[in-house]
C-alpha cells in the first residue's frame, strides 16, 4: 500500500514538474526529442491504427445492426456514442501503451542502469527536463492525433458497411452523421485522449526512471509496471470522465438518449 502511494506521489510530482517546465520545449535538444517522440508515437503508428480503426468500426456496426435491428439513425447514433466518444480514445490509448509505453519505460530504465541518466546530471541537465517533458507532451499530442485517425477510419468504415447491410444509402447515413455529431463530441474525445496520452507517458517515464534495481532484470520489471499501471490509469480516467460528463457534474453537456 505504501508502495502504491509512493508511486502515485512520484507520478504526481513528475506531472507537476512537466507543467512547470513546459518552456524547456523551446530549447533545441528538447524540441528535437519532442519531434522524435511525435514521429515515433504518432506518425509511425498510423498504419496499425488505421487497420484497427477500420476493424473496430466495422465490427461495432455489424454487431449493432444484427442485435438491435438498427435503422440508419440508430446505427449512426451508436457510432457517435461508442466510436467517437469512447472507443476512439481507448483504442488509441491501448496502441500507444503497446508501442510507446513499453519503449519509453525500457529505454529510460536502460539509461538509468547504464549511467546515462547520471551523465545528464553531470552535464547539469535535469533528466526530467530532457527525458520526461518531451515524452509526455509528444505522447499526449500523438494520442490525440491517433484518436482522430481512429474516429475517421472507424466511423467511415462503419458508415460504409451500414450502407451495404441496412436499407439506407451512403448519403443518407453521412447526412445523419453530420446532423447528429456535435463539436462537443470531438472536444470531449480530444481532451480525453490528451489526458490519456499524458497519463501513459508519465507513468511509463516514472517507472523507467525508477526501475526496481540496477541489474538488467529490472528493465522488464519496470516495463511490466509501466504498462499495467498505465492501462489501469487509462481505464480509471475513462470511468471518471464518463461519470463527470454523463453523470451529475456536467449532465446534459454530452447526452446519450435513444
Amino acid at each position, binding site marked *: 500500500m505504501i508502495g502504491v502511494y509512493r508511486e502515485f506521489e512520484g507520478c504526481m510530482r513528475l506531472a507537476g514538474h512537466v507543467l512547470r517546465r513546459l518552456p524547456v520545449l523551446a*530549447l533545441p535538444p528538447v524540441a528535437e526529442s519532442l519531434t522524435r517522440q511525435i514521429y515515433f508515437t504518432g506518425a509511425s503508428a498510423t498504419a496499425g491504427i488505421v487497420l484497427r480503426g477500420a476493424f473496430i468500426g466495422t465490427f461495432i456496426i455489424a454487431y449493432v445492426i444484427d442485435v438491435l435491428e438498427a435503422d440508419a439513425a440508430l446505427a449512426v447514433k451508436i457510432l457517435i456514442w461508442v466510436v467517437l466518444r469512447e472507443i476512439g480514445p481507448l483504442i488509441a490509448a491501448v496502441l500507444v501503451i503497446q508501442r510507446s509505453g513499453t519503449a519509453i519505460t525500457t529505454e529510460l530504465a536502460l*539509461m538509468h542502469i547504464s549511467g546515462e541518466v547520471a551523465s545528464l546530471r553531470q*552535464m*547539469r541537465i535535469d533528466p526530467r527536463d530532457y527525458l520526461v517533458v518531451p515524452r509526455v507532451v509528444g505522447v499526449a499530442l500523438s494520442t490525440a492525433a491517433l484518436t482522430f485517425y481512429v474516429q475517421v477510419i472507424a466511423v467511415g468504415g462503419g458508415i460504409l458497411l451500414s450502407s451495404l447491410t441496412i436499407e439506407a444509402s451512403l448519403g443518407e447515413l453521412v447526412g445523419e452523421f453530420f446532423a447528429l455529431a456535435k463539436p462537443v463530441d470531438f472536444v470531449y474525445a480530444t481532451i480525453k485522449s490528451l489526458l490519456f496520452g499524458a497519463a501513459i507517458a508519465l507513468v511509463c517515464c516514472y517507472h523507467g526512471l525508477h526501475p526496481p534495481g540496477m541489474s538488467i532484470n529490472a528493465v522488464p520489471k519496470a516495463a511490466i509496471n509501466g504498462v499495467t499501471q498505465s492501462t489501469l490509469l487509462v481505464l480509471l480516467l475513462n470511468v471518471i470522465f464518463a461519470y463527470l460528463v454523463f453523470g451529475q457534474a456536467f449532465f446534459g453537456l454530452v447526452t446519450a438518449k435513444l
Partner: protein
Amino acid sequence: MNPGNSAAPPDAGSPPPADGIALAYEPAAGVGECAIRIPLGGSHRASPLNESQKRRLVSAVLEVRGEPDTRLVLLGVDVDGLRPAGRAALRDRIAFLPADGGLLSSLNAWENIVLPIGFHSPRRLRDVEAEVSGVLASLGADPRELLGKLPERMSLYEKKLTGYVRITLEKPDLMLVEDPQGGLESAERAAAAKFPAAYLQICPGGTFVQLQVAREP
C-alpha cells in the same frame, strides 16, 4: 604537468586559507582516506586511495557539498558556508569527464557534444561547429569521421574524445577527468595525453585534474 596529489595533511586547528586552491578534499583524521589539494591553474593529477574515495570525491565535487567529516574547497571557495545559489554558481564552473566519456547511446557524437550547450547557452549553437572542428583538429582527429558516429560504433578513445570536446566547449574553470588514458592503446594514450594542453589553450586560467586511483602496493 605538475606532480602528484600535492597533498598536505589538514591542520588540526583552523582550516588553512582556500585562496589559490582549485580543489581541496580533506577528510578528517581517522577516516582512512588521503587528503587531496590541487593549486589553481595548470594540469595536475589527483590520486585517491581507492575507487570508493574517488567516487566520494567526485560526488562531493559535483554536488558542491563536502561530507560532514570532510573539508571541500573548490576554486578558492570553502563550500561549507555556501548558500544554494552560491553552490549552483560554483557548480556551473566545474566539469567532469567519466572514464567512458559519459555519452548518451541514442545520440551521435555531434549531438552528444552540443547537448549541454543546447541546454545552457542555445545561442552559441550557431557558432559551435567551427569550435568543435578546431578542438578535434588540435587533437589530430577527423571531425567528418567522428561526428556522425553513434557511441556503439566508437572506440573507447573516441568516446573519451567526444566527452572531452563536450565539456571543453563549456569552458569550465575546473575540469576533472577520470583516468583519461585508462584502457587505451599506446597511440591513443599519446593522443589522450594532449587533452590537458588543449584544454589550457582554450581556458588559459583553468585547472585540469586527472583523477587516477593510486596503484595498490
